[in-house]
């Protein structure tokens, strides 16, 4: 299967990419990992006239910590996040999420930012970045701006990115204290989009109570969602069984799943509850060990 014919551009700088985006607008698409876009183009349900391949832009590669944040460049592949042992301690959700995405060769190609910009509601990174309270750094003709993840997803396959803006990085806040995270996902088969998914990120305060909590919901609405009620109920509490039970019951309240081939809306809501409970129990145990060891 072949995509429609297109003009291929391979800029080597962000400015050049933005200039091309500005020039071709609606008719163009950015190609990063291409693991979602190219299949759609082969089916010809996506047929951009111009493809702007950003893989040759060195500025989009790699990550660094700065100003209390981890800045992850747009060309960071899922597999990079999966294997980066140096990030596991402070950003455990990254590798825990990455290993659930599709399969190894796809993870070698697909990028974190590309996945966010594609804005598939079933995307694993969507839920994870919600939990991490990330910002997406985008650059346009007028310079760059940070879009908080809660404002980034607008609708299925739609983000608040302007037509001539390029997502250049995603910023993840550096946690302030011991952190643990879980990514829970049920699939119909390995590598499938989630039936439902939940990303849970917890930072423990010195008082033994949760100081920061992030819970992102995947595949249960038109966009990745935040379990805001559950987060609020978690912050300031010790991770007791009682807290966990209360919090996990609140998670489904912020979900908006639909009935489909993967299961009913009720089922998906209940999965979120089960995921939350299991994730928090595991996190509690892990943090207890960690704090105890310190």
């Amino acid at each position: 299967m072949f995509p429609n014919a297109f003009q291929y551009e391979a800029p080597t700088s962000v400015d050049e990419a933005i200039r091309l985006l500005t020039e071709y607008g609606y008719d163009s698409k950015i190609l990063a990992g291409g693991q979602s876009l190219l299949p759609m183009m082969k089916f010809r349900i996506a047929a951009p006239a111009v493809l702007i391949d950003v893989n040759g832009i060195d500025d989009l590669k790699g990550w660094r910590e700065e100003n209390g944040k981890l800045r992850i460049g747009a060309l960071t592949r899922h597999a990079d996040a999966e294997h980066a042992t140096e990030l596991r301690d402070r950003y455990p959700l990254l590798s825990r999420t990455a290993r659930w995405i599709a399969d190894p060769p796809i993870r070698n190609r697909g990028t974190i930012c590309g996945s966010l910009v594609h804005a598939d509601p079933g995307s694993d990174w969507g839920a994870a970045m919600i939990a991490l309270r990330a910002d997406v750094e985008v650059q346009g003709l007028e310079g760059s701006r940070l879009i908080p993840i809660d404002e980034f997803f607008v609708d299925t396959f739609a983000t608040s990115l302007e037509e001539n803006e390029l997502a250049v990085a995603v910023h993840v806040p550096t946690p302030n204290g011991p952190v643990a995270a879980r990514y829970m996902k049920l699939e119909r088969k390995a590598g499938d989009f989630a039936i439902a998914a939940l990303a849970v990120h917890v930072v423990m305060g010195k008082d033994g109570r949760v100081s920061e909590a992030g819970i992102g919901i995947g595949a249960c609405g038109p966009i990745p969602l935040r379990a805001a009620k559950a987060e609020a109920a978690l912050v300031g509490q010790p991770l007791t069984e009682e807290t966990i039970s209360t919090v996990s019951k609140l998670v489904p309240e912020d979900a908006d799943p639909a009935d489909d081939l993967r299961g009913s809306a009720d089922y998906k809501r209940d999965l979120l509850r089960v995921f939350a409970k299991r994730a928090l129990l595991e996190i509690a145990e892990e943090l207890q060990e960690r704090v105890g060891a310190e």
Partner: protein
Amino acid sequence: MNIRVTVNGRPYEADVEPRTLLAYFLREQLKLTGTHIGCDTTSCGACTVLLDGKLVKSCTVLAVQADGREVLTVEGLEKNGQLHPLQSAFWEEHALQCGYCTPGMLMASYALLQENPAPTEEEIREALSGNICRCTGYVNIVKAVQLAARKMSGETQETLEVAATHGTSTD
């Protein structure tokens, strides 16, 4: 567009349409038909090759994206008339039936053993999860990768024979 690609150590220069997928480029322009195509949705992995040492599905990479880079396909595994240990292990363990998934499976196994020379069954199953086999039920593929891992870690033929006879693993 004109591209230069090194495939299995050999440089090629070719003119391709930007929309040409790497899999078709390899098969139809370079006549390296060992790389197969089995699906439209990047699901099956029959087209799996290594691009600059990284495992990719060549049906979801443009040929122009391989410009200036190195590709390794199944045809590049055999060296100087010697089968790669993975190839002979797949043969010995009956890890293939119709053979259509085999090139992709070999490439995925090759990539795995580069990073993890002694994988467990679970690690092998996870590493090959982007490659569908409809015939073998995977049991013998797992065995073959483990056998190849032992071969590549330098065990002698004799040790392997003993291990096979006694049904034990020597690692």
